[in-house]
């Protein structure tokens, strides 16, 4: 592999992360984190630990309060329109999807393609149909996002993030509230994407997910990190997670804890 291919995809040094709604409120401090190409990271933390804010910062949607965050070697502070091509190498799936409710599911998925590739609806349709078929969304394509369940909305958000064939996929708590069937589908799908799927020309995708429940993410190939007390702790592999003595990790693994009741 060339040096460029081996270079870190995400690199944070001593980063302080502000809250998305109020950047002056720091939710994470001194985050130093490096993600290599093709890695699959699971970042765990309790609600309001700063998981979403960390992903927003990683995607270049906001600047760090302190420190330096680089995506593909470019400081995310420089991510203006001149660096749009770099920005589009990252796909982001929000918790809950955050779909455009005025558009149909097909239009939601087609929008980035039509906007950035300046394609006509007909030209974009083929790529969109392929992806909708792949994600089993074709029967729902003409419905409004509000007409389908949260399970499917989350899947539409994935389709919208994948349509531009990103190299890095960031997912904010993608399994939250999913039914069992959908949950297994997501785990299989993300594993396939991480290993390299035909949709992305067989190229292994770098995947970062956040979660407040570690149990579904049991896999030896993944790397884990924990957000606790405004700090970022890399945990290592699954074996390290299981052997960790941290009460928050145990809680995220649903190990019964002592309660006051």
């Amino acid at each position: 592999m060339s040096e460029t291919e081996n270079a870190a995809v995400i690199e944070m040094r001593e980063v302080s992360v502000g809250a998305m709604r109020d950047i002056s409120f720091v939710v994470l401090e001194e985050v130093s984190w490096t993600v290599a190409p093709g890695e699959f990271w699971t970042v765990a933390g309790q609600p309001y630990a700063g998981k979403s804010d960390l992903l927003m910062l990683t995607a270049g949607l906001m600047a760090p309060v302190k420190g330096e965050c680089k995506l593909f070697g470019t400081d995310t502070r420089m991510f203006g329109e001149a660096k749009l091509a770099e920005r589009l190498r990252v796909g982001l799936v929000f918790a809950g999807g955050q779909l455009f409710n005025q558009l149909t599911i097909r239009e939601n998925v087609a929008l980035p393609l039509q906007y950035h590739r300046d394609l006509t609806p007909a030209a974009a349709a083929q790529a969109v149909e392929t992806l909708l078929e792949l994600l089993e969304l074709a029967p729902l394509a003409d419905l409004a996002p509000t007409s389908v369940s949260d399970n499917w909305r989350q899947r539409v958000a994935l389709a919208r993030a994948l349509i531009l064939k990103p190299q890095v996929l960031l997912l904010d708590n993608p399994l939250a509230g999913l039914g069992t069937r959908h949950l297994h589908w997501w785990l299989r799908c993300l594993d396939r994407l991480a290993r390299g799927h035909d949709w992305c020309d067989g190229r292994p995708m770098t995947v970062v997910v956040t979660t407040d429940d570690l149990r579904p993410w049991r896999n030896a190939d993944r790397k884990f990190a924990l957000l606790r007390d405004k700090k970022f702790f890399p945990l290592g592999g699954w074996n390290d997670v299981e052997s960790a003595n941290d009460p928050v990790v145990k809680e995220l693994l649903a190990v019964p804890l002592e309660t006051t009741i």
Partner: protein
Amino acid sequence: MRENLAKAFALTDTQIFRRAPLPKSYSDFLGRKLFLFLLTLQGLVAFALITLGVILRKSRTARNVIRPRIRREIARAGVALLPMFLFVALALGFLVIGQTVSALARVGATGYLGSTMVIVVVRELGPLLAAMLVLARVGTAHVIELGTARAMGEVEALEALGIDPVHYLIVPRVLGMAVGVFALTVYLIIGALASGYLFAFLQDVPLTPGDYYKQITEALNWLDFVLLALKTIAFGFFIAIVTCYHGLAQPLRLDDVSRVAVRAVTQGVIVCVLIDTLFILLYLVT
């Protein structure tokens, strides 16, 4: 992209002032009001300039996405309001113009008919009424749609997709409303003048349609057409700017949306009156 919005709004975070305890003295209260007004004005001007910049810079970007959105906005702020405007034009004609025509005829002042109609209907009442109606019908919808989109995180989703929210959400609304107000004003003026004559005719005013038409056309000059176009486009542009600004200005909660909609409509009315005043000065100067 994100910085486009951030530039306009970071300057004008008026929430801390709005939520501060009420000042004790009347002068403090007035001072706070003035300060808030200046902050809002600064934000609106910045937002208008940014939007103009995006319109010019991105006129060739993603035309396949933006053009249909502009057409949809023109339909919404123009074509869809035609039936209501037809009704208002008839009402305006019957209630105001017809009575004016018959009153002028009674005192033998039909010679002033043309200039009175041009000043009252073409210069003032037509454009202002059209702007107010579009503000009420479409401007309010802008605030609610954009406020809800902001509250539901759709703006962040656009940014994550590398889509400039100003280009995608604001530009079509601004252009659609500018074209819509202009077109509707023309229809309103023609409808009101025609129905006004019809009312006068029913009252047996001794005025032939030819004389009525001749008087109005003689009172009109090229400047009326130019300033009417500029004024109505300015109305549409600034109504859209005010309503879009308030819809997107702050990260809103859903329960903030109705409060912000009221504020946006109030400021929209003020902006229209200020623009109208500016144009009256222009008429006086030229």
